[in-house]
């Protein structure tokens, strides 16, 4: 050993690496360093092990060891017949499985549900795998084409018209309401002290209404003519296609540069035509299955997927509104967001289910499932708005300035530069919202929609399967399904987060 205290020291031969005197890696290292390295830790380890022992062992015993695997009714799951204390009663799940998945969806039509599910998976998987190309196209298919196809597949029914008829109908509705308002004011004027003023206002509104009526008259006339012909859908479709395509062409830059818009418009319409033809939407489509027959996992998935697809745009619009400099829009967005975030979802569902119809015109009914969907979408939309706002705030100011300096308008800047980056930032938060949305769908069972949990509860009251372990078995089954979906999503969000972070680092 050289004397280090002397001021000069030079190491002649380097010390070689050698293994540590005690093992600190591998299983033994783990046991030594993280389980039994101090008296307190030993105690904690023992306590933990006991805890696990008393939870895992009974669970496994219930789910597997003591379970009954086959049978036709409750008797096979009773201790008297089985001869031992029965755990899970799996034949009950087997018997109720169709109900838990499809609800009362007619047996002969269930292939439609399966097909929709397959379509969803086929479209969703490539969207989730970051390596695959053509994300934009794929997302377009999933977010726009798929919901329509799924609607006609699941619900059935066909089209009575197309774009033109719809536009005409919508405008007419609007006009009717204006005329209605005018008449209301007129009738008020008879009893009011400011009668003459109201009379003038009422007549003015009526005048506007009548003007609009004549303005849109060609459109409504055309619609009525179309509806008269046998081929209303196709004629309407053709007219709509031509009009929309032309508009796209000229807005896209006309002869100079509009070819891209032209081509994509034509492609979109051809795709729509193929779908209409394939599903026979022009002559009634598939037999209608009313939504009150839907149930089980089907409803859970429909509600959550619709919620996911619709809440994001709502959230984006609200988030942009909240950052707008236009006072009314900002105030409205803030009030809207804070309102939905401040009330429990269940009251929102009550509101949508029982009060929405009171606010709609008398002859206008909205399907029960759709009402719940509206409530859930608005509710989740408000939460998504806050997520998106976080993302927007994280974009440096320079990005917007650079885009402005290049001459991009506010809309283009927002949609091409700001939003893509903002959304990328907040994917984990968005996915977390989706997870809570998926879990929250179970609340629709309180407003008499039979989702997975609702169907499960309904199946509990079947005396044919009433045994002491029925409820536990049902909960175990539904719990596993919920867990698989939610856990899958949360893992996926972690994966995306890691990828994003890795991307940001270099």
């Amino acid at each position, binding site marked *: 050993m050289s004397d280090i205290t002397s001021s000069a020291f030079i190491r002649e031969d380097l010390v070689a690496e050698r293994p540590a005197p005690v093992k600190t890696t591998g299983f033994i290292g*783990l046991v030594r360093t*993280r*389980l039994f390295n101090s008296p307190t*830790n030993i105690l*904690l*380890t023992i*306590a*933990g*092990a006991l805890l*696990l022992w008393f939870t895992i062992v009974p669970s496994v015993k219930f789910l597997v060891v003591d379970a009954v695997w086959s049978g036709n009714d409750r008797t096979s799951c009773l201790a008297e017949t089985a001869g031992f204390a029965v755990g899970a009663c799996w034949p009950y799940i087997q018997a109720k499985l169709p109900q838990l998945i499809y609800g009362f969806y007619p047996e002969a039509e269930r292939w439609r549900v399966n097909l929709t599910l397959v379509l969803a998976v086929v479209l969703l998987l490539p969207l989730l795998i970051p390596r695959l190309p053509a994300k934009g196209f794929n997302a377009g298919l999933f977010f726009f084409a798929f919901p329509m196809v799924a609607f006609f597949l699941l619900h059935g029914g066909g089209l009575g018209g197309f774009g033109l008829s719809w536009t005409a109908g919508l405008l007419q509705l609007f006009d009717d*309401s204006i005329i*209605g*308002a005018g008449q209301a004011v007129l009738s008020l004027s008879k009893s009011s002290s400011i009668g003459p003023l109201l009379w003038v206002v009422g007549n003015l509104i009526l005048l506007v209404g009548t003007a609009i009526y004549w303005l849109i008259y060609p459109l409504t006339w055309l619609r009525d003519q179309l509806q008269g012909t046998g081929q209303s859908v196709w004629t309407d479709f053709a007219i709509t296609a031509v009009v929309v395509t032309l508009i796209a062409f000229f807005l896209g830059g006309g002869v100079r540069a509009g070819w891209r818009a032209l081509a994509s418009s034509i492609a979109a319409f051809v795709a729509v035509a193929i779908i209409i033809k394939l599903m026979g939407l022009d002559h009634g489509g598939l037999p209608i299955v009313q939504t009150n027959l839907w149930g089980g996992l089907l409803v859970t998935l429909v509600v959550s997927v619709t919620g996911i697809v619709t809440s994001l745009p709502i959230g984006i619009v609200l988030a942009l509104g909240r950052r*707008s*400099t*236009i*006072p*009314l*829009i*900002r105030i*409205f967005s803030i009030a809207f967001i*804070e*309102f939905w*975030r*401040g*009330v*429990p*979802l*269940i*009251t929102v569902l*009550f*509101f949508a289910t*029982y*009060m929405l*119809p*009171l*606010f*709609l*015109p*008398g002859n206008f009914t909205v399907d029960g499932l759709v009402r719940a969907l509206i409530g859930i979408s608005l509710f989740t939309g408000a939460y998504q708005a806050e997520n998106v706002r976080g993302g927007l705030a994280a974009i440096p100011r320079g990005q917007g300035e650079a885009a402005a300096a290049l001459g991009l308008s506010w809309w283009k800047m927002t949609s091409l530069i700001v939003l893509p980056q903002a959304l990328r930032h907040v994917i984990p938060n968005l996915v977390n919202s989706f997870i809570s949305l998926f*879990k*929250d*769908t*179970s*609340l629709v*069972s*309180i407003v008499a929609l039979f989702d997975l*949990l609702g169907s499960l*509860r309904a199946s*509990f009251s079947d005396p044919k399967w009433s045994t*002491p372990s029925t*409820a536990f078995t049902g*909960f175990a089954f*539904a*719990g596993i399904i*919920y*867990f698989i979906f*939610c*856990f899958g999503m*949360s893992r996926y969000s972690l994966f995306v987060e890691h990828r994003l972070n890795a991307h940001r680092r270099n």
Partner: protein
Amino acid sequence: MSTEARKPPAQIALKIRRVLGGKTGWNGIAVQFAFAAILGWIAYEIVSNARTNLENQHIAAGFGFLRNNAGFDVNQTLISYTGSDTFLRVFMVGLLNTLIVSVVGIVFATTIGFIVALCRLSPNWLLSRIGELYVEIIRNLPLLFQILFWYLAVLAALPNPRQSISLLGIFFVSNRGLVVPSPIAESGFEAFLAVLALGIVASLALRFYARRALFQRGHLIRIWPYVLGLLFWLPLLTMLVFGPPFSFELPQLKGFNFAGGSRIIPEFVALALALSTYTAAFIAEIVRAGILSVHSGQMEAGASLGLSRGTTLRLIVVPQAMRVIVPPLTNQYLNLTKNSSLAVAIGYPDLVSVFAGTSLSQTGQAIEIIAMTMGVYLLISLITSAVMSIYGWRISRSLGA
């Protein structure tokens, strides 16, 4: 030739335009008008439709119904209530039931949440895995699912009152809930209360004194033995002197149910249990993130100054972690309060259940009742966010950001 700084021109017109229309000026005003028109139109449609619909159906409008007799009973009331009380009273009963289950839920959720967070942060591998398992399982199952599970599955597994499980012969668990002895004040009650209050005040004073002693004279005083004495031994002593402060009315099986004692209904237990375990999983993650957000250098800096581990935690790490923890924690408290409305699924008489549920179907006045219910929740969350933003503002000020 340098120009002096001047005041900016007034540009009043521009400023007005800004206020009215935002950055885009006239365009903004136009957009606003269009937007206001659409909003107005929608509002008009809603009001006029609701009016015609209500008129057609002869539904009475207004809040007059609140003074009518409710005519039904509620099985858990914190204030006295009978079937002949008014709907307003029902509203209060429901609100109080919501608040009590929320408060209990919050207390337990916080406790469990901190414990689970500590487990997850524990150097013990097994314990941190168990914590993780808990969080992952609980977070990924719907709350309603868990409420129903605790209520239906577990309730079904409990015996009826005649065979109830007795703990020490004074607590009884059955499918009617948990029956505990109810305290009845005795002669020593006042003395006991007085001494307890004294103990608490003295402990606080002691803490204050200890701080001062440390800061002014450099005396570090260990106060916990004294506090223990004040809060535990002293009341015990008074009990010996003045006799027991209260006796317990023991529950006894009589007829169908237990007579005497206080009963906690299973709906409450299931709801509070589900709410607190569910929220605890989220709180655990928040606490963990908060503690991890305190840079490890802070702990090291404390250690290198010679501060003990406990002192470093108490004076350095926890205050910093709390800043990160408190805002999302409040959010969770709010969520828990809102989630307590799921009581309606298991028949616990909370606000939504007895007011937006039973009262609504007895009176049919959906608009008023739903509006009142939503309003209450909205009020709670608005007040909370107001308090939170004040808190946030104070923090950012004290950090000098």
